[in-house]
C-alpha cells in the first residue's frame, strides 16, 4: 500500500513538474528581433524623448505603433553614439533602406480592436498601464510566440488553466475586461471585437 502511494506520488510529481516545465517551452517558441534596441537610451537623460515622439497617432485617430524606418533614420542616418548595436542597425537597415521586421509584443489578434486614442488621449491611461515599464528597459525582452496560434505571449497570456498566474501589466483580453469592469465602462463584446 505504501509502495503504491509512493509510486503514485512519484508519478504525480514527475508529471506535474513535467507539465509545468513543458508548458512554456512546448507552447511558445522564441523568435529573435531583427535588431537590438534600448528604450532607456532614447527615453533616459541622454535621449530625453517621450513615448509619443516615436509611437505616434495618425490623422485618422489610429495608432501607428512601432515607428517605420524613416522615423529612426531621421536621427540615425549616421551613428550618434558609440554602440555596436546602433552601427549594426545603420549598416543593416538604414543604409540599404530595408524596413526592419520588428516582432510586436502587443500585436492583438485580427478580431480585436484597441483604440489607443480612446484610451490614451481621452481616457488618459498611461502607456505603462498595459505595456509595463518597457520604456525604461535597456534591452528588448525575449519575444515568444505561441506555436499554434502565432499570437505573442503577452497577448495570448500566461494564465494556465485552473492554476492561472496573472502577469503584471497585461494586454490579454482578461486584463482589458478587468480594467473595464473596474471602471464600469463595459457594454458589449463589439466594444473591442471586430
Amino acid at each position: 500500500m505504501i509502495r503504491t502511494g509512493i509510486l503514485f506520488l512519484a508519478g504525480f510529481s514527475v508529471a506535474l513538474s513535467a507539465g509545468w516545465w513543458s508548458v512554456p517551452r512546448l507552447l511558445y517558441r522564441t523568435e529573435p528581433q531583427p535588431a537590438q534596441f534600448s528604450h532607456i537610451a532614447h527615453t533616459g537623460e541622454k535621449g530625453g524623448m517621450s513615448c509619443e515622439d516615436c509611437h505616434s497617432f495618425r490623422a485618422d485617430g489610429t495608432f501607428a505603433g512601432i515607428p517605420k524606418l524613416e522615423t529612426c533614420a531621421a536621427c540615425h542616418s549616421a551613428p550618434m553614439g558609440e554602440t555596436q548595436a546602433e552601427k549594426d542597425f545603420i549598416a543593416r537597415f538604414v543604409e540599404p533602406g530595408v524596413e526592419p521586421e520588428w516582432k510586436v509584443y502587443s500585436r492583438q489578434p485580427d478580431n480585436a480592436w484597441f483604440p489607443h486614442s480612446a484610451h490614451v488621449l481621452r481616457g488618459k491611461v498611461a502607456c505603462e498601464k498595459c505595456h509595463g515599464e518597457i520604456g525604461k528597459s535597456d534591452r528588448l525582452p525575449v519575444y515568444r510566440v505561441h506555436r499554434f496560434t502565432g499570437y505573442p505571449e503577452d497577448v495570448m497570456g500566461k494564465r494556465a488553466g485552473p492554476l492561472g498566474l496573472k502577469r503584471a501589466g497585461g494586454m490579454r483580453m482578461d486584463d482589458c475586461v478587468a480594467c473595464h469592469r473596474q471602471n464600469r465602462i463595459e457594454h458589449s463584446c463589439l466594444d473591442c471585437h471586430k
Partner: protein
Amino acid sequence: MRKLGAENKTARYAMLIDLDRCNGCGACMVACAVENNVPPPQPSATPRTGLNWLRVFRLNTGGRDAFIPVMCMQCGDETPCQSVCPQKAVEFDPATGIVGQIPERCLGCRYCMAACPYQARVFNWWDPQWPAGMEQALNPRVSARQRGTVEKCNFCHGRWQAALEKAAQDGESGPVRYTPACAEACPAQAIRFGDLNDEEFAAECRDSGAFRLLESLGTGPKVFYRTSRAEVREATRGFGEVKRG
C-alpha cells in the same frame, strides 16, 4: 453606465429606407460584402446557403418592380435572437442599439436563425476562400469571417469603431456619426442612416408614411421603410411568408 467615447449619452442607430427610390441595383449588397470581408460565393452556394448580411428582395407587386433591402433589424425589444442564444453570442448593446453577433462565441447551433422573424441571419457554411491574392484586399477594420458560425449585419460596426477612434483623437464627445457601407453605396440615397435620439431623424421615422416589417410582433426593429405606393406597402406585409432562398 458610461460608454466609451459617448459620455453619459447613448445612440440608437437606425435606418430609414425609401422603397420608392430603391431600384434594386444591388450596390448595397456588394458594398456590404466588400466592407465586411464576406467572401465571394462558393461554387455550390445557393440563395439558401449564401452569405449575405444584406439582401435585396424583389417584391411581388403585380406591376412595376419594387425591391426591399432587408438586413438585421437590430430589434430593441426582447430581441428574439438574443433570448434564444445558448452561448450568449448575441448581445444587445444599449449604448448603440446595435445587436452584436460574436463569432468567437457562436457554436453554430442556428437557433437564432430560426428565431429571427426577418430571416436576416445567415450561417457561414464554408471557410472563407478568396481567389488567390484577393485576400490582400480585405478590410483591415473588420476581421475575416469564419466557418461554422451565424453572421448578420451589425450596422458596419467597423465604421463605428473608426468613427470613435477619430472622435477620441479630436476630443469630441457624444455619440459618433458614421455611415454604414450600404447607405454610402446606395446610388439613389434610398438608405438613410441616423440616430433615433436625433429628433429630426426620429420624427421622419415616426412619420405616418414610415413603417417597419412585422411591427405587430413587438420586437422593436430599428429599420424603417417608407413608400408612397400602396401595392408596395401591401407586398411588404407578406414579408414573413417570403422564404429565404
